[in-house]
């Protein structure tokens, strides 16, 4: 398809997006949502930094990523779950219901190109809705707040991918369902399903947990922790492309039901293969300033010498806070450094409260080259010592790495309420009115 015609499709979809009340509602709501999150986060950060005559937390614990950015951008997780799908559904369902789809299918260009135009416009619309987040970042800087560019950009990328996932699911649902209402139910059902999967699979290991790593919430979590994982990016992109391909299959009304079902099965098979391939990609980058997802450089160099597979058996229940600590402080880092790591979760109960002592509850077993060691500690250095022992490696000398200073900041969110609760909604309504005014309303 020639680029001129694709540009026409883009222009058409952009006009359709601007004609959508759902999109203007998203824009109207996102300002106050971001504002509420930002104002609360800045105030809490100030309290933790020692404002109001209270005791300050350890400065090293005060990172703008956790304290301000993640809560502020949390508004976009809500918007991607509850607003964006309706905007995407409208762009497909309105054409199905009005009969415009019959014209669109006959226009030059493939159905894939037409869906790509819709996808790109929806993504552009999402970027526009990110303006309040950029305003929040600017305000934070104006207060004297610190931003570490790699972790900020990583978080933005995470939310962009999260939005793409929402758009993809909604577009596929709109293509499959008879009406916009059915598509909305399918999309929300999918979201609730991923929440359930995320909850059920936590700390259980195996295929279920592998799958749960790529739910929108879990995928976003790794970006929120400052980790850029190649497999997460690839899996999300594969899912997004698959949902658009599925939409293309089901919007092509000229194909028989049998053909569409077979295409769907083929697509599912390709998706599974690609996802399994992508899951094996272990490359990741710790983009945090405090290197929270990494061991000290000397330890990482020592771990890279280990070539043998390491098996870890964890006898801790999914709800046990020790397992959460172990996952976040040790396993995440080990997975980034050991190419052959297998973790088994073997606790029998949900809470750990009713595990019998004979079940060895709380034990963590490390096995390499037929040798086994048991320890109960979830502390990083203790675990590393056990692994060095099994691997026959001398522990590296403690290095003199520069300590993360932390960025305490006790300021009040000046002007934020005016900007997010006043200026943004007024600007949104004014822009909507100006755009609508160009087109005469029906009498």
């Amino acid at each position, binding site marked *: 398809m020639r680029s001129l015609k694709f540009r026409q499709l883009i222009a058409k979809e952009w006009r359709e997006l601007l004609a959508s009340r759902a999109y203007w509602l998203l824009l109207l709501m996102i300002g106050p949502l971001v504002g509420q999150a930002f104002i609360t986060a800045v105030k809490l950060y100030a309290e933790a930094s020692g404002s109001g005559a209270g005791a300050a937390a350890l400065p090293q614990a005060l990172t703008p990523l956790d304290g301000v950015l993640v809560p502020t951008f949390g508004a976009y997780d809500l918007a991607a779950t509850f607003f964006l799908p309706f905007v995407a559904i409208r762009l497909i369902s*309105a054409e199905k219901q009005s*009969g*415009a789809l*019959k014209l669109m299918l*006959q*226009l*030059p260009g493939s159905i894939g190109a037409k869906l790509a135009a819709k996808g790109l416009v929806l993504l552009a619309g999402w970027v526009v809705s990110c303006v309040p987040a950029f305003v929040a970042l600017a305000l934070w800087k104006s207060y004297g707040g610190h931003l570490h560019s790699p972790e900020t950009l990583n978080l933005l990328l995470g939310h962009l991918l999260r939005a793409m996932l929402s758009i993809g699911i909604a577009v596929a649902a709109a293509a499959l369902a008879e009406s916009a209402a059915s598509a909305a139910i399918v999309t929300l059902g999918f979201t609730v399903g991923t929440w359930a999967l995320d909850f059920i699979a936590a700390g259980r290991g195996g295929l279920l947990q592998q799958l749960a790593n790529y739910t929108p919430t879990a995928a976003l979590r790794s970006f929120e922790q400052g980790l850029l994982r190649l497999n997460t990016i690839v899996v999300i992109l594969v899912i997004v492309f698959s949902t658009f391909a599925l939409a293309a299959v089901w919007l092509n*009304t000229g194909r028989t039901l049998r053909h569409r079902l077979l295409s769907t099965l083929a697509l599912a098979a390709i998706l599974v293969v690609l996802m399994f391939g992508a899951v094996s990609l272990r490359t990741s980058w710790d983009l945090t300033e405090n290197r929270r997802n990494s061991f000290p450089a000397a330890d990482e160099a020592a771990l890279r010498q280990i070539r043998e597979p390491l098996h870890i058996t964890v006898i801790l229940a999914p709800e046990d806070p020790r397992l959460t600590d172990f996952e976040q402080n040790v396993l995440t880092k080990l997975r980034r450094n050991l190419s052959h790591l297998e973790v088994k979760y073997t606790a029998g109960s949900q809470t750990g409260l009713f595990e019998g002592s004979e079940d060895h509850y709380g034990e963590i077993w490390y096995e390499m080259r037929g040798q086994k060691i048991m320890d109960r500690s979830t502390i990083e250095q203790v675990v590393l010592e056990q692994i060095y022992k099994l691997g026959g490696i001398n522990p590296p000398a403690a290095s003199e790495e520069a300590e993360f200073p932390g960025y305490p900041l006790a300021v009040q969110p000046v002007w934020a309420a005016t900007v997010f609760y006043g200026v943004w909604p007024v600007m949104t309504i004014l822009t909507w009115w100006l755009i609508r005014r160009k*087109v005469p309303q029906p009498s």
Partner: protein
Amino acid sequence: MSALLTVEGITKYFNQRRVLDDVSFSVRPGEVLGLIGPNGSGKTTLFECLAGLMPANSGVIKSNTKELPPAKRKEALFYLPDAIFPWAEQTVRWVLDFFRKIYERSEQDASALVEPLRLDELMKARIGSLSKGERKRVLLALGLLTPQPLLMLDEPFDGLDLRQTRDVMTLLKAHASTGRTLMLSIHQLIDAGRVCDRLVLLSAGRVVGEGSISDLQIRTRLPEAGVEEIFLALT
């Protein structure tokens, strides 16, 4: 005369109900062909099957003796459905402009349609605010802006008043005289007799007659009969 399009044995079922039954006919280049039949005779279904928007259970469509698969149909023909409400929030001017640009037609091509279809006073209006007749005129303009050799119009006079019907008939005949082939589905038999060069008569999903009015008069042995009498005689 060789056929622009040959339809052979199109059959379509909705569940167990056969709505098209072994439909075969041909479309000649440059003619205005009328697909006529009462409501529910399968005209719209046939159009959608021909346009590749709905799968047929069997049958083939050929263009100049070569089979035309559904994916290639949009290169050979354009189908303008009846009773659609596309892009309700957009203005008439914008929708016409979108079609003009995407088919790389000149501004003159578009403005030539404005007067005969009386669109000038509608240009700033939103599609969603138009009456049925106004919307039909806008949709006809979209169809006439498309460049495919065959244009299929579903009920092109539906919703138009007497004067508008006459004007649109004149416009369609003028359009066909430029060499484009038109296929019109019409349930008003008198209208069909006035505008079409040849007719395909469809009844309960079956072709019961094909030819010019004089051909059909000979076939039915009703030399003075109009389209209505011919149709009644054949069904």
